[in-house]
């Protein structure tokens, strides 16, 4: 019979959990760790109390759900009371999940002891931005495009913003075409690939999942085929 591995919060007599609790408690005292009896997942829930300069407190109930491989992967944050409408414009998707960033752009560092505090700070700033959106109707600060276009935007930025380069290197990025490190770069610079776009392509393949890159490549092919 296969023994189910212990969840992260029970490992080492719960030392990992106690350490996280100690790091968060002083900064977010209204948040408490709980275990969901159905899924066995640990989550952090309670109010984040945003304080305006004029003293007005705004309490927002959040739920931070930890993955089974925590801290290997980052938690997910949710609008637990459903006070914000689900909307791409405010970066909240089904189930009230906060889209804090494009996943490859996450700053999550499993080796950083303050990773959870940093994550909560990002959630706090995200909530502050929600409240500003309520007032102005415009998302404050930087945002990516939605869906696959957000990823394409990231690829483009890593490739220096050149759409023609994205088109040329997409088969290489998606693993559909092999290119030797010493081959001439496809961009036509005359340099070796490893000295030209090789590093950018490598960065992309490290940061983005292979399957995702494949699906983005297929999508780009469909789009270019659809163009008359």
């Amino acid at each position, binding site marked *: 019979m296969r023994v189910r591995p212990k969840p992260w919060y029970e490992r080492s007599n719960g030392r990992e959990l106690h350490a996280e609790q100690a790091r968060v408690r002083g900064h977010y005292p209204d948040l408490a760790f709980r275990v969901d009896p159905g899924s066995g997942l640990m989550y952090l829930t309670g109010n984040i109390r945003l304080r305006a300069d004029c003293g007005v407190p705004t309490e927002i109930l959040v739920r931070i759900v930890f993955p089974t491989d925590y801290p290997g992967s980052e938690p997910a944050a949710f609008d637990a009371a459903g006070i914000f409408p689900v909307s791409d414009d405010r970066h909240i998707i089904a189930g009230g999940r906060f*889209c804090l960033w494009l996943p490859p752009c996450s*700053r999550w560092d499993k080796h950083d002891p303050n990773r959870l505090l940093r994550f909560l700070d*990002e959630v706090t700033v995200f909530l502050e*931005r929600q409240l500003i959106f309520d007032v102005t109707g415009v*998302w*404050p600060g930087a945002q990516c495009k939605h869906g696959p276009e957000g990823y394409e935007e990231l690829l483009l930025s890593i490739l220096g913003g050149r759409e023609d380069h994205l088109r040329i290197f997409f088969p290489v990025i998606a693993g559909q075409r092999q290119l030797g490190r010493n081959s001439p770069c496809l961009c036509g610079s005359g340099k070796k690939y490893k000295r030209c776009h090789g590093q950018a392509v490598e960065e992309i393949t490290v940061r983005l999942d292979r399957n995702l890159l494949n699906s983005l490549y297929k999508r780009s092919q469909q789009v270019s085929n659809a163009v008359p």
Partner: protein
Amino acid sequence: MSWNYNTSLSRVQAHLDSMGEIEVEKLIRDADLQSLLSETCCREIYGAHVYVDVPNFPDLATMTAEGEDYRRVIQAVHLYEREVARIVEEESIFDGVRIHFQGAKLHALFFRPIDDSTAIAARAVLLQMVLRHFVRSIFNAEFPKLPNLSLCGGADLGSAIGTKNGHRGDRELLFLGAPANYAAKILTGSDHIRVTGALYAALPESLQSYFGETTDDRYNAKVYELGPIAIEDLEASLEEHGIKWDRRASEQRLKDDKATYPLSQIEYSDAEVLIDIDALGITNNKRVLAASVFGDVSGFTAYIDQAEDQDALKTALRVLHAIRKEMASVVKHDFDGVRVQYQGDRVQALFHLPKRNDKDIARRAVHCAIGLESSMELVIKRLLPEAAGLGMATGVSIGETLVSKLGTHGHRDRISIGDSVEEAARHQEGSKCGEIAIPADVHAHLDEELQKLFVWNGDRGLYLGTNITAEKIERARKAELFNQTVFVTSGAAGVHVSSQPTDGSRFFVPSSSYAG
């Protein structure tokens, strides 16, 4: 100079803690309302509420050039008020209650004889007839250098709650309920005297015959408008109802007052420092560039009229007093303004500093309006859940304003008169719960972020801000913060996000948000 949540919270809590047990009973015997009523001693009073206005005075106070002509306007306002107050209050004449003057607009109450609706309604109507005659035939003749003044009036009959604000120096009678409101609402601003159906129905036939039925298009309500009445008929009616008004005596008193306060004694000046209205009077007035703010507790008349028992009435009055005191604190302490007066469930405020600086004056007035909204929405409703159905409706306007204190010892009214005062009141009266109405010239003076929170309403020719609170302005201003490093401070007091570092703050450039 700003609104602060914690300051407001502790103020309102202190107001509630110090408020005594409120008592509300029906007034069943004659009493001196000035002595009887207080913040906690309130009475349900059946009576006729009368408003009488001279719409020319605001124009004159705004448009008249500096010098002797302006002193004449001031003299006229004061002397008009003095004689009107005598006519209303003197036991031998109308024996009524002068609640106060709102600028040049009189609010009076007749409740004697107790519960005698016919006699009460008759007095209300006869007062309007007398004052119309007084203005047209006596006052205008005495002030030939002024344009002929006209008079408009409104009156309603029914029960309203009488109370008083609690400050020692400037106690004012406050009346809450439909008749106190409708009497003012049916004023036309031109040469008409109108009464509601309730008051008309209570009139003796002899007086009903002077009225014709008409419709007030603004409210689609049936009202009754006073037609002409010859002075001989008026005097006969007065005699019939035991009212001893002698027009010659009135004329003589006006002449005597004019001799006592000649133009040479009437003074006015601009104000470098905050006006102390209580130090003003007929010989010492202020003419300032000022923004007027009217903040009304929207929904309160219906709230108090629907109170089903004494406990509900007491609760409503407790809510009113808490709101009223907080409104005054926002005006005076948060924004360094002048609370001119309470008018039932609304407050009238004035902002005139820095002297002649229309930009800063306009900004201060709008921020005060937002402060009133903030106190109502964020503090009052938190401490008093029973106020959930109420809200603030606020109007603002800016212009030349005459500021003074009318009357003689004992009962004096703080007033400000000018077109902008009337406009601010109209802007408020046309606004819904949560709205702040400002004209384009005030809007033009605001910061860009704040301007964006107001929406142009073409029908009203005004900018309207809905549910704007201090924290919303703050957030509108913070919109640019998230393209750069932000500093987060967290702890037991909550989390604060800022563009500036503080002790123990953590910092980062916010991530680009995503959706997918």
